[in-house]
Every structure is written in structure tokens, then in C-alpha cells.
């Protein structure tokens, strides 16, 4: 942990110190003047940060295993949310281009509402994972050994196609994900806290703990080996294709969870999927970059930092909207990212690229 030693000659450490002191002073002042608003803002920012961290984790898993930045994560998030919506709300499931329909078995089930909802989400996540596997097999596997940038552009092409197809599904009909917690919540003084905040935080926590334990399993170790050096991993008898497939499947599942929470508070009020849902991944990209493209703890910390910055800026700078323009909190993540990269060009926890002559 030598990394955490303070060094006054290093500019990044000074910036960090200044931010820390500023944050403590600001928090103390706000706690003294309006503790209820401060606490609800804190919960809100943790919730948003968790959603960003979830999506960032998807990016990082795929990047670590395959060295590809998956720009289609947003489209996958939207399609995942659509799968959830189909499973939860539709009596008949549409198959391939809406040519024919089959009855939805989960919709017929009796029992408590939330069990049915949980079951639908699990099945929908399974479909999302399947989609991830298919995409990996068809478009990414043939590109092994090609320039990384070409592969990144392939994912951009995927993003366009998938996003347009998904957008067309929500153009006419109101597609709700019917979350069991609804829009409910409770008050802390003048502030309001939604149940969905806790759902997002718990999901993110579970996902990070799962990835933490997964990296200690046999498959996880081979995944880390592949991330280090593909050829050496292959020489040790690791099946790289399987590692790629698992990374993409897991990435698609995380994206779908992100898409589910992109329809909930604090991101959207309506609880329905709309054409902005796919933008959630582009809003989470600053979190990935700030934390470092190849670091799991970076995804968590980057996500929380970016979410906090966005919510706090939205809460405490709203008096300056006439100068900053309406909707300014949405670009706060990018500004934070650019400032962060000026100090640490490979993110907070990213591995610097070794440059050889």
C-alpha cells in the first residue's frame, strides 16, 4: 500500500488533499445548516454512483479479459431492460422481429408479486447473457489478433444497430419494468429517499462481491491470466475463447442491471424504458476512465466519485442554472473526468502502459 503514502511534491496528491479538505469543510457546513438535505443527497449520490459502478464493472470485466472497450454496453443495457419488461409485463412474448408470439410462462404463475418479478428478472438476465455470448461469438471472436481499435469500432457498429432496434420497440408503447418498490420511499426532514436507491446500492454491492469472489475461483484466475498475457495464458492451457465468452456474458448481465436501474430514481422518474435509456453507458464512461480502464476497484470508486459529483452539483449549484444552463449535472461527470485525467492520465487505479523505444 505504498501507493497511499502522501508526497507533497506530487501534484495529484496535493489535488487530492485539497479536495479532501474542501469536502470536509463543505460537509461540516452543510451538516450544521441542513443535515436532512445533506443526508438525502448523500443517499441519492450513493445510489447513482452504484448504478454507474455497475455499468463500469461491465466495461472493466470485458476490457480486462479482451482489451476491448465495449461501446455497445448502452444498447445492451437498453435491450436487457427491455427483456425484463417483456418478461414482467407481457402476456405473450414476441420472438424474432415480432413475427410470432408465445405465451409468457412466468406471467401465468400465481404467487406473490415480488417473487414473480424476481423470477422474471432472473430469466431476462439469462437472455441478456445469451445475447452477450452470441455477440461475442459472432463479432468479437473472429477479430482476435486484429488491431484493438478495429474491434472497438465493431462495438460502435453494434451499438448503432442494437440501439435503433431497441428504440423502435419503445417508440409506440410505454414499456415499464414494474419494479416492486415502485416510486415509494420515506422522508428525512425536508428530503425524500426512494426505495430504489437501496435496491441499486444492494445490487451493486452484490455484483462487486460476486466479482471479487469470482476472481479467486479457477475461472477467475484464468481470466486474470488472460488479461496479463494472452499468449502465455494459452501456453498454460487456458481456453481463451471460454474466458472471452464468460466476460461478455457477465458484461451483458451487468449492463442489463444497469439498464433496469436507469429507468428508476434518481436517474428517471417514470420507471419506464425510453430512448434515453441507452445513454446511461455513455454517462458511466467517465467513471470507468476516472477509475482506470482495467481496475475493478477503480470502477467502484470512479462510479461513486462521478455519481457524487453529479448529484451534489445538481443539488448545491442549482442557484446558478442561468449561467450553467439547464441540465448541467449531466455533463459534470465529463468535467470531473477531464480534470482527473489531467492529474492521473491512466485513471486512479489504471495500469500505466509501458512504453518502449
Amino acid at each position: 500500500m505504498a501507493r497511499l503514502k502522501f508526497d507533497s511534491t506530487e501534484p495529484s496528491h496535493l489535488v487530492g488533499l485539497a479536495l479532501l479538505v474542501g469536502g470536509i469543510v463543505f460537509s461540516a457546513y452543510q451538516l450544521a445548516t441542513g443535515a436532512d438535505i445533506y443526508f438525502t443527497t448523500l443517499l441519492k449520490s450513493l445510489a447513482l454512483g452504484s448504478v454507474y459502478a455497475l455499468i463500469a464493472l461491465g466495461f472493466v470485466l470485458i476490457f480486462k479479459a479482451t482489451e476491448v472497450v465495449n461501446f455497445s454496453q448502452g444498447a445492451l443495457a437498453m435491450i436487457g431492460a427491455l427483456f425484463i419488461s417483456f418478461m414482467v409485463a407481457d402476456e405473450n412474448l414476441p420472438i424474432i422481429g415480432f413475427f410470432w408470439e408465445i405465451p409468457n410462462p412466468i406471467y401465468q404463475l400465481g404467487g406473490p408479486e415480488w417473487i414473480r418479478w424476481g423470477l422474471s428478472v432472473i430469466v431476462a438476465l439469462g437472455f441478456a447473457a445469451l445475447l452477450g455470448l452470441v455477440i461475442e461469438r459472432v463479432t468479437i471472436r473472429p477479430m482476435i489478433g486484429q488491431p484493438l481499435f478495429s474491434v472497438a469500432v465493431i462495438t460502435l457498429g453494434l451499438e448503432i444497430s442494437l440501439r435503433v432496434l431497441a428504440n423502435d420497440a419503445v417508440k409506440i408503447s410505454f414499456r415499464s419494468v414494474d419494479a416492486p418498490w415502485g416510486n415509494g420511499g420515506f422522508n428525512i426532514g425536508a428530503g425524500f429517499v426512494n426505495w430504489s436507491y437501496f435496491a441499486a446500492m444492494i445490487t451493486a454491492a452484490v455484483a462487486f462481491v460476486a466479482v471479487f469472489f469470482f476472481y479467486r475461483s479457477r475461472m477467475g484466475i484464468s481470466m486474470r491470466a488472460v488479461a496479463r498475457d494472452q499468449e502465455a495464458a494459452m501456453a498454460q492451457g487456458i481456453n481463451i475463447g471460454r474466458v472471452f465468452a464468460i466476460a461478455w456474458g457477465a458484461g451483458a448481465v451487468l449492463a442489463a442491471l444497469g439498464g433496469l436501474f436507469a429507468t428508476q430514481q434518481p436517474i428517471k422518474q417514470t420507471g419506464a424504458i425510453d430512448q434515453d435509456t441507452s445513454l446511461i453507458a455513455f454517462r458511466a464512461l467517465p467513471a470507468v476512465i476516472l477509475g482506470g480502464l482495467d481496475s475493478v476497484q477503480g470502477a467502484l470508486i470512479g462510479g461513486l466519485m462521478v455519481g457524487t459529483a453529479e448529484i451534489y452539483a445538481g443539488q448545491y449549484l442549482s442557484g446558478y442554472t442561468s449561467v450553467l444552463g439547464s441540465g448541467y449535472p449531466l455533463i459534470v461527470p465529463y468535467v470531473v473526468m477531464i480534470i482527473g485525467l489531467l492529474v492521473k492520465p491512466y485513471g486512479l487505479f489504471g495500469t500505466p502502459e509501458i512504453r518502449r523505444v
Partner: protein
Amino acid sequence: MFLRPNLYTSYEEETQMLPTYTKKVLAGIAIIVLFLIPFDVPLITASTDLPVLRNIPVISNGIPPLRFLGDSSWLRAMDEALMFAIAALGLNILTGMAGQVSLGHAFFMGVGAYTGAVLGGVATSSVWGWSLPIWIWLPGAGIGAAIVGIIVSPVAVKLRGLYLAIVTLGLVFIGIHMSNTNWGKKLAGDPGLGRDFPTYDIRLWKEETPLVSIDDDGTWFGFLDVTDNQKTYLFLAVLFLLFIVLAKNIARTRTGRALQAIRDRDIAAEVMGVPEFKYKLIAFATSSFFAGVAGALFASFAGKLPASQFSLALSVEFIAILLIGGVGTVSGTVMGTFFVVLTPKFVESFTEWLADKTEGDGIGAKVADVVISNGSDQGPVSAATQTPGYPLNVFDWNLVLYGALIIVFLIFEPLGLYGIWIRIRNYWKRWPFSY
């Protein structure tokens, strides 16, 4: 010389723009075709009217006979391709030559468009505009974008690879947001509708009648009737050629060699005395200049445009152009632009043609019925341009195919169109031997 075209005896010979006779001839033909395209050349139109061709059923059934474009709707697609080629050449300098991947090209196009709009546009109560002539606002748009490029480059020079790509992607979002602020609205007008952009008319100063009017029909040399579309095309074609020469020359000079050295191995380049910071800054400035000019042309071509048009999708289009064309070459970039910009037009006319086919009978009509929906029957694609949801409307169908095309192209031909051209060329060079 004629017998051994690949034997170079001096450095000037090796770096000349068109080194071989084949290239000289091909370039000459391309330039002649470029300038003939907007006209109905009587010779070609007459030759496609020959009885032999007229008896081929496909041609007599609706597909127009082969001819240059005349004043058709294809001319607008060609105009767009010419403008986009200018912007793509700029990105090629930054990404192809200097190796700095940028997803922020749309942002620089937007900066250029609004610089041009303020310099050349007409002021109203809600937007700024100084009504200056085109010879000020067009270069001004480029210079404005270049200045912003220089301001951004200190951040960009520190970053490499995907980190740079994502930071420049952030620029696009920040740029669109800035057009929504109070002072941004003075530049960009209403966020939903946009503002009026200056026209292409060439004036000496602010006089009433332009020196060369491009937005009106007219007659040249007393006998040649030209419409405004044809004039616009010719104007853009001249600019396009100018920028090709500029881009080719940048590649040949000291700057171009320095940029390529940085791309290939930046530390090695610095050891050999190429200042990395300075040349990356030059690359950003030049690339933004190209983007700014293209953005101003694009905006005034559209006439009225909201700032949200300069979005990530536009940036992605340029990256796709570079990769499909072949990174790092001027001719590849131009080929890629025409391919990417014109393909949606082909898809569109194909869909229109299919929609017509559904009326008839036979195998063609059956196939068309499966693909196209005319309202009652359920194909995946709708013949109407505005259908929400499934079946897909033609515009969305274009986008889906465009995305799929990028994927398929890169999987099967990672070197792009330029790679295909190299393979064809080598085949004929070695013919009749296979290697």
C-alpha cells in the same frame, strides 16, 4: 523512366503526389468525372438509350438508364460526401497519420459551424451574426475550430489510446450542452430548431447582389443552364480538390513525416529530435481546421440545424469512414467517405424499388412482400418513412444496415477498401503469376 516506373533516383521523385503513370491517368479521369457528374452529358445519355440496352427488362422496368446525375436527388448525397470527405481528411491527419484516436470530430465541426454562423450569419434578436462574406467566414470557421483544438490539445497530448478517445467523446457531450446555455443560445439559436446559417454566395463585401450567386439558378457562358444544386456541387467539388491537395502535401512535408514518426513509436521519435508536444498540437490544430471548414459547409448546406446534430453519431461516422476506407491514406479516406455516405442512399432507393415491386407478381414480388410492409401486411420494413415501432421505417432500417455493414466490413476486410484496392492492384501487377 517510362519502362521502370518504380525506380526512384531522388527523394523528390519518391514523394511526389502521383508517382506512377497509372496514378496520373486515374487521377485525371477522376477529376474529369468529378466535374462532369452534375451534368447530363449528351454522349453518355444517348449511349444508354441504345436499343440493346433498352431491351434488357431490368433497365426498361424502372431503373433509370446509366447517366451522370444531372439535377437529381443523388446530387445532394454527393454534396454531403464531398463535405464529409474534407472533415474525414482532417481526422485522417490526426488519427491516421499521428495515431491519436479522436471521437470528438463532431465537436470541432460544430465549433466551426457556429464560428462560421457568427461571422457570416444574419443577426436577429436572438442570435449573433456579422453578415461577413464567405471568404472571411469559411476560413474563419476553420481557424476558430483550430484555436479550440489548440486549447484542448494540452489535455489530449497527455493521454493515449482509448483514454484519449473517451475524453474527446466527452467533448461532444460538453459541446452540445454548451449550446443550451444562455450565451450558447446566442451562437446556436433555439436548441430544437437551430439557427439560420450563411449561404454559399460569394460576395466581395456586404453588397446586395453577390459576385457569384450559388443559391439561384443561372446560365453560364450564355448557353449552359445550371441549377442551384449543380452550382453548389461544383463549388464543393473545387473545395474538395483543394483540401485533397492540402492533405496530400501535409503528408509529404516535414510535418507529415514527424507525425508518422510519432504514430509509429513516440519515444523513438522524440529521441530522434521530433518534439512530440509541438507536433501533436499541430496535428490537433490542422485536423480541427479541416473539421471546422467542413462543419461550416455542412451547416450552411443544411440551412437550418440544431446543435444536437453535431453528436457522437457524427463522430462515429468519421471513425467508420477512416476504418472502412483504410487508415492513414488520403485515397482510402476519400473512398471510405463515398462508401459510407452513399450507402444509405443506395439502401433507400433499394427499399423504394422493393416497395414498387410488391404491386406486381412473380418471385420478386414474393420476396419484396416478405421484406416490405405497405401497411397491411407484416414485413420487418415499412415503405412509409414515418412509422413508429415495428415494422422499421426506412430511415431506421438504414441505420441498422449501416451498423451491420461496419461490423461485417471490419470482420472480413480489416484493412478496409484500401486493402481491397491493394489486392486488386497486386493481382494485375503480377498477372499471370499468382505471386
